[in-house]
């Protein structure tokens, strides 16, 4: 028995290594090394377009942490992420459960419909919503007027435009989350529901005591992934507020800030430092989420 176990362990080990080694080599080349280089550059004064560089320690970090624009971008990003993630996860779960329960016919069709926003490119999607929120021609203001409210200038005010940006995000993300939740719901063993039925459990009891605990790993996955995705929000915020047609400021997010430092001001050092700060924030919050879900 002991020998068999060792043999099994050995073959397992070979299997693991045969998978892990090539993948880790690839990761090293196309992820770890470039990211470490970025980390390294964050301690230098380095122009993106000039070869020379000089070591300046933490100066890039102190610069961006003191930069009002950075703080503003950070706050904007956290705001967008919080609302987009929470609502798109809740809506995604709700939609997935409705589709899975299928109390009326044709749910397959509606599921396909709900998935379409996911496959539309971000730039046209955002422009489409921008049209709907347009002050002068937008359908949203038209509806507001019909019900007797005044038009709202959705786009040109930094404190209002965050809502259309959140809505675009939710619109695109909820179908995505729905699909992943759906897979999770499918995987919940039927026996659990069957035995609960025998015990006479109500629907909400089944939801609370069976479904939600069972899909916990998937929920954690979706929350973490959505969060990581939204903290890198860029396109919808940029497209919604840029172009000569727009007035008011561009709604800056962290990635826009990084982008601007790098591609506009050519300051590789600061762009890298800002990326590292972003990494730390995401890492801490992710770790916190994972911790939370373990209890």
């Amino acid at each position: 028995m002991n020998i068999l176990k060792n043999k099994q362990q050995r073959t397992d080990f070979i299997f693991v290594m045969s998978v892990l080694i090539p993948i880790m080599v690839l990761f090293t080349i196309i992820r770890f090394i470039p990211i470490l280089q970025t980390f390294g550059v964050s301690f230098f004064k380095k122009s993106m377009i000039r070869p020379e560089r000089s070591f300046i320690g933490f100066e890039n970090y102190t610069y961006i942490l003191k930069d009002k624009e950075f703080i503003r971008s950070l706050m904007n990003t956290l705001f967008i992420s919080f609302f987009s993630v929470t609502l798109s996860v809740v809506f995604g779960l709700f939609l997935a459960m409705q589709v899975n329960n299928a109390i009326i016919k044709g749910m397959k069709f509606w599921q396909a419909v709900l998935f379409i926003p996911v496959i539309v490119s971000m730039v046209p999607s955002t422009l489409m919503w921008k049209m709907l929120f347009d002050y002068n021609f937008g359908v949203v203001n038209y509806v507001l007027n019909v019900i007797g409210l005044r038009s709202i200038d959705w786009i040109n005010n930094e404190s209002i435009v965050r809502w259309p940006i959140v809505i675009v995000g939710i619109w695109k993300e909820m179908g995505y989350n729905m699909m992943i939740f759906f897979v999770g719901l499918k995987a919940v063993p039927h026996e659990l529901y069957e035995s609960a039925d025998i015990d006479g459990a109500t629907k909400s009891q089944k939801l609370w005591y069976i479904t939600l605990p069972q899909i916990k790993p998937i929920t954690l996955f979706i929350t973490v992934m959505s969060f990581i995705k939204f903290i890198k929000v860029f396109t919808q915020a940029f497209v919604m507020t840029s172009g000569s047609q727009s007035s008011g400021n561009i709604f800056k997010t962290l990635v826009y800030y990084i982008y601007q430092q790098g591609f506009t001001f050519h300051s590789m050092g600061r762009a890298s430092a800002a990326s590292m700060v972003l990494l730390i924030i995401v890492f801490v919050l992710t770790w916190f989420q994972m911790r939370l879900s373990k209890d």
Partner: protein
Amino acid sequence: MRKKLLFLLLIVAIMVTPLFAGGDSEKAGSKEVKLTLWNSSQTMVEWYDEVVTPAFKEMYPEVTDVEVLYLPIQDFVKKLAVALPSGDVPDIMEIEDSWATPYLTAGYFDPNTPELNRILDQMRPELKNTVTYKGKTYGVPVAPFHELFFYNLDMMAEAGITEIPDTMDEVIQAAVKMTKRDATGKIERSGFSMRLGGNPSGTSQKFWVLGLLPNGVDIWEESKTQPGKYHAGFDNEGGYNALKMYLEMLYKYEVDDFASMKDTEAFAKERTAINMREPSAAVSIERQGPNVNWVAAPMPVGNVRRATFLITLNLYVPKDSPKANKDLARKYIELATSEKMQDNNAINRAGFHPYTSVDPASFVQDRLKPGFAMPDDMHIITVPVHNAYDMAQVKLGEALPNILKKAELVNDPEGIKREVAYLASLVNDAYAEFDEYAE
């Protein structure tokens, strides 16, 4: 199982083929040459393809094609930032002067040959400023443009205005008369379309030409003690008057607001009466609003002077471009910037004819002509080559909308002064950033 194997083989095949196909397509030994040119101005592509290149091929039969690769400006700048340092460059690049500056000072372009300089010498002297760095010249202007005003004639007639305004005060008075509101007081049609946001460098460019230049000041000012170094040029009465004028247009005369439709699109759809833009916007106005009855006019006289900028797209030969093609690339630039080709460019694109010997107004369509007839008192301002310019522009353009949203400033002279000083500090910081700052 066999199906799967075939599928796998197919994938491997797809992955491997490009390895062979993707290699360099330059055929060794053959004398045929293909030049490449990158640009970011859509309206220029047709001109290169249909006018310059055919003429060039006639002169140099060994050239099979001059391929123009157009990219929208926001993509173009990313490509520049990566391609120039890595050396993956075309034979010729067309870049707007201020975008090219950081690359020019970093040494990514070849200095002009005597032949190219000879062309430069025949052009308007102001243009030389945009390509001169440390005594050498880099690149030749291929498409200069200035700023002018577009007026909607029907709206002017409706408001009883018979003459095109010639001073900024008259412009504002006319704009007030032409502003239209709906029952709720919301602006349906602005009297003058103001640039209040969007791409930051555009915002500050408009503030520069409409606010600062007519008030006799500039974004920058060269240091008197250290030539080649700069500081903000508007922390003074001129800057104060510029910002005050913007605020008054918004909150005293109320000719525009943040929510209205803006710019060329608004003008083409008759949602604004006056718009300020470069001449090539005319092409777009004609396409989107063929029935708009408009005329162009030069920049009006401001508090201190009449002024416009002259910005230009230049053609550069990158330092790392294929050596074998460099001579032909220069010949192409010579041809494209020649007087004959520029005649054509001026007609088709409503460009500004760069040659001193030619009247810039003589080539454009009638309703654009007044905008090209430069009055004698016109000051033509160009941007000298300096590194911080772009950053200064962006920082200025990002800060402006926030200031312009403060309606209470309009009656607060001290507040305006504070904001002007703040804007100036942003510009000075940008210069300090590039070691170009001096009192």
